[in-house]
Structures are given as C-alpha cells and as structure tokens.
C-alpha cells in the first residue's frame, strides 16, 4: 500500500523523532566539551569539596562548588519537605474528597499555577515574601534560603499534585469497592488501600518535583540573595548551582577558566536531573510532561 514517493516523508518524520535523542546527546557533549577544560587546572576534589567560590579574584581565583551544592541542597530539601505533604494532601482531596464540580474548577487552576513564569514567582519572593518573612523572623538577610524554599515549594506543587492525583485516580475501582464493602471508612480505604497502591506513582511525582526544584533558576536567583557560603542556616543568604550560572555567565570572558567552571557547574546540574529523570522513567515509563 505504500508508494515509493512516501519514503522521504517517512524519513523526515523519523529524523524529527530522533532529534530529541540528538538534543539530549548534544547537551551532554557541549557540557563536556566546555566543562572538561576546567578540570585540567582544577582537580575534581577541589571542585566538589572546595569551600570557596571566588571566581572573580584576580590573584587567587577559587572554584570550590561546595557552597553552591549546599545552597541548592538546603533550598531544595526545605521546599520538598513543605511541598510533598501539602501536595499529596491536595491530590487526595482532588481525587477522593472533592465533588466533581469543585474538581473541574480546581484542576485548571492547578494548571494555571504551573504556567506562571518563574520570573514572576521570583519577583513575588523579592518584593513581597521577603518582607513578610522579615517582619516575622526579623531576618538579618532579607533574601535568604527560606524565602527561596517557600517560593520554590509553591512552584513545584502543581507537578506533585497533578501526577499524584493521576496515580490515585488510576488505582483500580475494584480495590476501593472491596475495601468499602468490607466496612472500611473512606479514609481507611484511602490510607490502607489506595495510597499503598498508588505509592510508586506518588514517588514519581515527588521525584519530578525535586527535579524541577533542583533546576529552577530565576525564582531562586531572585529570592535567595546569592552569597556563596557553606551554611545550613535557613535564614542565611545562599547561592544555588543554577543561580551562579545565570548570574556569572553574563560577565565571563569566553574560554576563560571561569567560563569553563560555569559549564562544569552545568554538567553537575545536568547529571543530577538526568539521574532523577532516568529513575522516575524506570518506575513509570512515559509518565510525564
């Protein structure tokens, strides 16, 4: 049934499908190509464990990424701790508690939150949230890790809510009915039947939420104050892996050690999110976007 003339069409369709693979490959290649020269001058151990990030120092520039790693860690983990219980609670509410009409109103709203540009969240953290926090905690640093974590938790909630909700609603009806028929209450059914059955889906939701949080740039950059110091103090100003690239790439000399260092940070960032994506893809194939 095929005509010969359709081969070029099929070939171009195939090529556009392959393109995603090529893009992923070229991201990896360019990060290596531009990041690898950095390690010729700075050893890996100094990059990972070095406590000083002073790339602009004229006499003794140092490229220790530890403050950036701890910065990302503290912001992302706090955001996750806030967003996960809240997100799963909202997902259960949407899937099992809310009636259909409320659900039909709330789901588009969740999508709307997901569509708000990150620079807008960053602006809110910068001018509004930081002031609220300052009034409550009398912070020394107006822009701090907590400010970033709070705005970030709001940003990853849509991801956690919608994927968890999908996981909960896709639990077989029979499981639920059987549990209810045995005399369990709705909450007991959710707790002992539905949540255990949906747990891998919820795990994926959490992982993808973390992945988004790790990679988020603008909101965190505008919220956390960007001082590269090793600290676990939530009220201290911190700088993340993403923010340092966005801030410093504008002022580097292309081809300099500083330029290569920023690509090395990008490579580290890519490897972290790549690992998260691969693992979540293996748990539930094709569950995304």
């Amino acid at each position, binding site marked *: *049934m*095929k005509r010969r003339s359709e081969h070029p069409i099929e070939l171009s369709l195939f090529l556009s499908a392959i393109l995603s693979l090529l893009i992923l490959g070229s991201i990896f290649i360019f990060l290596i190509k531009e990041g690898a020269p950095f390690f010729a001058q700075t050893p890996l151990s100094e990059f990972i464990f070095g406590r000083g990030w002073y790339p602009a120092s004229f006499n003794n520039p140092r490229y220790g990424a530890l403050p950036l790693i701890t910065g990302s860690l503290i912001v992302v983990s706090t955001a996750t701790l806030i967003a996960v219980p809240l997100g799963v609670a909202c997902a259960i*509410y949407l899937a099992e508690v809310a009636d259909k009409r409320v659900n039909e109103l709330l789901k588009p709203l969740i999508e709307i939150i997901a569509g708000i540009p990150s*620079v807008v969240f960053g602006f809110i953290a910068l001018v*509004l949230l930081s002031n609220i926090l300052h009034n409550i905690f009398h912070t020394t640093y107006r822009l701090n890790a907590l400010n970033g974590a709070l705005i970030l938790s709001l940003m990853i909630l849509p991801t956690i809510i919608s994927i968890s909700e999908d996981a909960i609603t896709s639990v077989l009806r029979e499981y639920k009915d059987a549990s209810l028929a045995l005399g369990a209450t709705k909450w007991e059914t959710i707790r002992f039947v539905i949540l255990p059955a949906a747990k891998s889906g919820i795990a994926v939701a959490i992982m993808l939420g973390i992945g988004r949080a*790790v990679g988020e*740039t603008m909101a965190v950059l505008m919220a956390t104050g960007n001082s590269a110091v090793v600290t676990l103090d939530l009220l201290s100003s911190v700088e993340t892996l993403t923010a340092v690239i966005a801030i410093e*790439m504008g002022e580097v000399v292309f081809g300099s050690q500083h330029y290569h260092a920023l690509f090395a940070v*990008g490579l580290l960032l890519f490897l972290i999110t790549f690992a998260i994506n691969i693992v979540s893809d293996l748990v539930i*194939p094709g569950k995304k976007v």
Partner: protein
Amino acid sequence: MNRKVITEKIVFGLFRLCMISLVAIVLSLLGHITMNGLPVLSLDFILKPPEGGMMGGGISSAIAGTIMLMLLTVVFAIPLGVGAAIFLSEYTENVDPRLIRVIRMAINNLAGVPSIVYGLLGLGLFVLFLRLRFSILSAALTLSFLTLPVIIATSEEALRSVPRSYREASLALGATKWETIRNVVLPTAFPGILTACILGLSRAAGETAPLLMTGAAYYLPRFSGNIFRQFMALSTHIFFMATQSPNPELTRPIQYGTITVLLLLVLTMNMAAILLRSHYRRKLS
C-alpha cells in the same frame, strides 16, 4: 464506629484546608500583581519604548521582542514536534521497539532538563559554535528545543485520540498511509495540535534564564526586527528592572505593569489551551 467517622471528618477537613490555602495564596498573589499592575497599563506603556535611562516610558520593545521570539520558536518547534509525534503514533510498527523506548526516554528526559542547561547548550551550540551570536535567532532555536517535549506529548495525545476506524476507512478507500495521515488524521487532530502550538507559545513567552545567555539585552532603544540582533523580552525586562536597574524601588510600577502584561499573555494562552483540550477530549471520547 463514631470515632472513625470523626477521624475521617478531621482528616478530610485538613485536606480541604490545604487545598483552600493553596488557592487563597495563588489568588491573592495574582490579585496583588494585577492591583499594582493594571493602573500602570496605558496605550503609551504598551506602545512606547523605555525612556529616561530605563526610569520611564513604556515596554514596546520588550513586547515586540517577546512576540517575535514566540513566533520564531513555534515556527521551528511545531514542524519538528508534530513530525516526531506522527512518527511515534503512526509509524512505530516496523521499528525496533527498543529504539522507540530510547526515543521516549530521551523525550521524557528533555522535559526534565533545567532551562538554564538549555541556555548553556544555546550558548555553546548556537551563539558560539554556529556563530549565530547573541541574537533572537539563537534564543528562539534554544527555546524551540526547550518546548519540544511539551509539543510532542500534546500532539501525540491528539493523534492517538483519532479513532482507528477513521484510518481504516481511509485506507480501505485506497489512500496510502501518508495520504490517510494528511487528509484524515491530521485534520481530525487539528485542535490538539493547535493546543500544542499554544502551549509552545506560552512557554516561550515565560522563559527567562535561557534568554540571559543567548541574546537578551538590558536596553535597546527600539526593536530592530532583525533576527540576527539582540533583543529585549518581557520576562528578562522584569528581571533586569527588579534586580539591576539603578533604582529598583523607583521603577516598581514599571515592573508590576510588565508582569501584568506578561501574565495576561501567558495565562490567556494557557486558559485557551485548557479549554480547547477539554473541548476536543469530550468530543472524541
């Protein structure tokens, strides 16, 4: 039994409270922005370029830059994304399933790559390696890569929702596979592909970080229209004005106004996409 019912009431009440507080927070944030932003909006604000060392004037050059960026991004990303979606939904039967699996993993993975990393790719590949310099073209190509996963996923869903019987009827009438796709499947899936297009446009309008590394300028007196030149965009304008202008406190009204324009643009498109999708989902199911 009674105690169980009370527990359930408390727990469900808590869940409801979580949802209500989320909605309240988001609505009050949007309210805060529009209340401060709407009074700033005027014809002059939309139609005039920034003036007086970025302390006054309007945002016309940023609006023009963002629109140009959105259109270019979609021009690159839609053919590629829809092509990939057609392949994945219609042409997979004669292909090694392992290859399909790898392609799908790559698409899923690209959806999770941080936008700043796309920025690094854009800088390395388009700006420096292909010598497109800091330009609207480099930025749009970068954003087309970034939007590709969303466009593929949305278009593929649309193609898959076309009933099998439509294809069989066309094939039975003697149409070739491609004729069937072009004349039957694509027209039926058109609302879905339009949704993909709108989502791509809206992503392109809201992105910021990749633009900083591929050609967004702090200030340009007017929009050049030349795709090989630097540009201003709404998203980066908000960032620059809020963090790097000589006096961010004094230009707050401009910032609120710019955010309101950006939100109107992005949220209108997202709402259109949601409505369109629920409409065709209902129609086809």
